[in-house]
């Protein structure tokens, strides 16, 4: 018997278009770009704050432009998708065993949402 195995080449650049689950994965990964960019925006905000009230006010006023409003909206959507997609896989990465049973995944996911809500509430109340 001949052994001349045939190796099928895999495209390194467009493989994620080949299956919906790969697209979902890439969507989760791409959200990082928005979150990273938003981090730079926060650093820029801190930079302007360090230059005094006038500089910070001008910075905040600049954020009212359509581009920055759109960017913030997109970053918010990306952050929510990023967070929820990771929350939803936490039971796989952090299973909790109690005796002979595992704590149901929904409880572990729910706990993450609860902490998220509480922390967000504290920041909002504290911020206002």
């Amino acid at each position, binding site marked *: 018997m001949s*052994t001349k195995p*045939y190796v099928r080449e*895999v495209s390194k650049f467009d493989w994620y278009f080949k299956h919906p689950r790969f697209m979902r*994965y890439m969507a989760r990964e791409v959200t990082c770009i928005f979150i990273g960019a938003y981090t730079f925006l926060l650093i820029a905000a801190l930079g302007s704050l360090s230059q005094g009230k006038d500089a910070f006010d001008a910075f905040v006023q600049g954020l009212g432009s359509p581009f920055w409003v759109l960017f913030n909206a997109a970053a918010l959507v990306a952050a929510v998708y990023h967070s929820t997609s990771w929350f939803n896989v936490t039971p*796989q990465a*952090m299973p909790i065993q109690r005796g*002979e*049973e595992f704590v149901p995944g929904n409880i572990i996911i729910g706990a993450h949402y609860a902490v998220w809500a509480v922390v967000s509430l504290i920041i909002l109340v504290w911020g206002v």
Partner: protein
Amino acid sequence: MSERQIQLEVLRYDPDTDSEPRFQSYTVPCKNEWVVLDALNYVKENLDTTLSYRWSCHMAVCGSCGMMVNGEPKLSCKAFIREYSDNIRVEPLANFPIERDLVTVVEDFIAKLASVKPYLIPKEDKPISAGEFKQTPAELMTYKQYTLCINCMLCYAACPQYALVPEFIGPAAIALAHRYNQDSRDGGRDERQEVIASHEGVWECSFVGACSEVCPKHVDPAGALQQVKVASTIDWYKEHLMPWVKK
């Protein structure tokens, strides 16, 4: 008993005559309860005796009949014809070289499986007279799901990371290493960590999760890999920040 005629498109490759694989179509009269493997067996017995594919148990236990059915990794003995349209495309498992027709070269997986030492390495030698290694039901539950792996390699065919980085140890082998690491009777974790906590080990995994979605035995290899990442990260911090703490 209802019968339906389907077109079964099969990827064929004869290493003696073909320079690359080609599709061949067969018209197969299928019974309602048939699976894709039955259709292949019909082709082999009635239409084309040269067709090559692996199978054995026909009941999702042996793990040898894995192939791509309409682009999705499936055990062909578990893929019911009635769940598909009249055109079904069957290809060898993705991400493995094709030996002939639907038969793939699996040596890479076998070597990786062996490299993670998927067997009990007792913590200490014990004479037979000292009795068995006991385990509570709770200790069994910790790793039980991973024992259900049948080494069918569907997870490797689904994994884009294995496709892009063939050195990746991969889902099933690491999940099995995790199974033994989690076993209260085992003491071989340090030996396995050298392989599975390496760059080609869990750190090649980017948690696409495809492995767990396609697993025919509902094992969760993706979960196992993330748990190994967490444990390996804790190891690293212990080693670098608290060198006086023994693992």
